């Protein structure tokens, strides 16, 4: 791109740093806040969780004689991985992602393309209206939807029943949770895609139109490839966010017993810690989940990295 050449040039002719206390101290000082916070709120808790995960609490006899902390090595990890409930949590999560990610990304992309098309009216209004659900906190959203799912209470269920349609959302956790998540996140991702679409140079689109490309062709062959980096980023964040699924199913759990106590891996860790008071197991489950998230993020960035690199090459 045109803009990048002078930048690179400046980078090359930048003078080497002058040795001296003041100069070398400044970057360190400016970076310090980040590292202090990073250590305090990220590294330390992870370290503590790993530490917790290596211990178990043991009693003896009837169990009323006191508690001993015993080092169990990877014992908690093997019992988490050997627990069908924990693995089922990953299964539920996979099923959820299978429906949620294509649906939500597809919908937000479609909405962004519609807003970006020359035909759209009242763009500002729709942008705001579509984004609004995201401004509602997850807990509130889950509570509202729980109300809308509950028979005898919900006007929607009532209307469906009188129309002869019987589908219990509370009895089917996956669609119930996917629906809430789509409602919450479509607007947010739509804004990201819309912003990326707005950044596409207009002359490119004009050229396409002059060449006789129909709006659909412009969208598929020009706009989509150009916003691929945004798409990849949105997918990445969605995958990581999905792995941490907790609030919505936890709220639904109160109304829908089908959302079992270990419905997602995060809920499994929560139950292990606060209902079964097995902090070691909870920590091990959390560490395993974090590893899964790291592996998945790595995979997604790797796959997308190659492609967006190619896209950049094509641009140049």
């Amino acid at each position, binding site marked *: 791109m045109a803009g990048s050449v002078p930048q690179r040039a400046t980078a090359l002719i930048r003078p080497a740093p002058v040795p001296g206390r003041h100069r070398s101290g400044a970057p360190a000082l400016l970076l310090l*806040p980040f590292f202090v916070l990073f250590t*305090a709120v990220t590294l330390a808790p992870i370290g503590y969780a790993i530490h917790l995960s290596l211990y178990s609490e043991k009693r003896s006899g009837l*169990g009323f004689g006191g508690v001993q902390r015993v080092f169990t090595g990877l014992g908690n990890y093997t019992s988490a991985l050997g627990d069908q*409930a924990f693995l089922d949590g990953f299964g539920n999560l996979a099923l959820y992602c299978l429906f949620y990610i294509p649906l939500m990304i597809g919908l937000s992309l479609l909405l962004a393309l519609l807003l970006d098309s020359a035909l759209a009216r009242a763009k500002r209004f729709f942008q705001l209206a579509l984004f609004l659900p995201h401004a509602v906190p997850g807990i509130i959203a889950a509570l509202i939807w729980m109300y809308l799912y509950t028979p005898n209470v919900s006007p929607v269920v009532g209307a469906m029943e009188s129309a002869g349609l019987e589908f219990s959302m509370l009895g089917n956790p996956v669609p119930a949770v996917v629906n809430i998540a789509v409602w919450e996140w479509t607007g947010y991702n739509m804004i990201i895609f819309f912003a990326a679409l707005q950044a596409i140079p207009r002359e490119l689109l004009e050229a396409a139109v002059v060449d006789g490309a129909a709006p659909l062709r412009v969208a598929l062959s020009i706009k989509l490839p150009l916003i691929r980096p945004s798409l990849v980023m949105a997918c990445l964040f969605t995958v990581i966010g999905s792995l941490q699924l907790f609030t919505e199913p936890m709220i639904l759990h109160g*109304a829908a*017993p089908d959302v079992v106590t270990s419905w997602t891996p995060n809920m499994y860790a929560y139950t292990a810690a606060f209902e079964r008071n097995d*902090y070691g197991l909870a920590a091990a489950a959390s560490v395993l989940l974090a590893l899964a998230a790291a592996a998945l993020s790595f995979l997604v960035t790797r796959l997308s990295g190659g492609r967006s690199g190619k896209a950049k090459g094509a641009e140049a």
Partner: protein
Amino acid sequence: MSPFPFSRRRSAHGPGVAAVTALGLVTLVACGAGDGADSSARKGPVSITFWGWTKGTQEVVDAFNASQNDVRVKFQEIPAGNAGGYAKISNAVKAGNAPDVFNVEYPQLPDFVSRGAVQDISEQVPGDLKSRYLPQAIRMTTLGGATWALPLDIAPQTFYYRTDIFEKAKITSPPKTWDEFRADAQKIKEADPQARIATFFPDDASAFEAMAWQAGGQWFKPEKDAWKVDFLDEGTKKAAGYWQKMIDDDLVHVAPSFSQQWTASLQKGRTAGYLGASWGAGVMGSTLPDQSGKWAAAPMPTFDGSAASGMVGGSTFAVSKDSEKAEAAVRFAQWATTTEASIKARIKAGASSAYPAAPKLVPVAKSAFKSALFGDQDLYGLYSDAAKSIRPGWAWGPVMGATDGSLKDSFAKVQKGGDITTAVREAEKATTKELRKRGIKVTG
């Protein structure tokens, strides 16, 4: 001199550094407050913190604080135990900032004791104090020979029902046996296809456990140095089979307890009864304000027709492990569970229908309790008989979190090919596994 001598330097460092310093200070201050809050050495009243959720608790705390000057109780209302309250307490115990005293229900007390979250208060509770409570309540707060909590109420299961719906279905008297209960359930469904006699709560294991208890089940038996665990005894099998048949034949609703779904169904008259605890009447009073006089209470039906009951919940006051003010905490707990003033404050205006574990307070509770929902019925007379009929021999195990968690998860499937007997078998397996994992001995 400039009033802001450091302004230039600060601006040179940027707001980031200031923010971090401030954050660090906040953290330090927060830690300091946690460690140094103990003021027992200071003169003046001892201040203790208390977490609870039972109805009328705020009134009890206010009355206690007004009654004397030695102990100041700071009350914080938390969600009901199984609705997140226990999670909150466990978390606080783990983090070292637990309240001095908190409510625990009987089923969870052994769990709390076993993981060392509450302290042994045998020394603060002399024999003559113990003799003021019902022996059943003392049995359930004495574990491994030590006293761990003071009992507030005992909670025999009771059958609450809508008299008008029963009349419409041509049922003249409440069911005495489970066979009659089933026949009545059919009549109610015939009279109104949307109505059912009661609700099976898949989210609340304690309701089913009370019915297994009532039928003679004994899941946990503490032997000398080990637990005898047997969930599928005759009584439990009977209760499990009975309820599964009720569900299969669509004679009861299946909905979570205290959920919107359940409440709405009660409000619309589609649920004609509730198998609840003694404290349930007070809760219903505030949920169903416009069904005055339409409800009545009856003893639990039984399999053989002779009175028997199990308990659903029932609260105690326990002192947390690390509290250094056990004496003040026990003093408050004693006041809150044995004095007339406390029970009057709690029961005022019918908000609570707790049946006191201290028999001396029953007449006080009875005269203080007024419920529009139940007209003039003498609920406390009914509870007294029900309390006497609580079957002895039931004990709660030390890992009820795991037991109930497993039951809840399998109860979710009772309408979809699962069944209660299997759920109980699974729960026994999960319980035994958890006990062994914690190093607790199991036989049988």
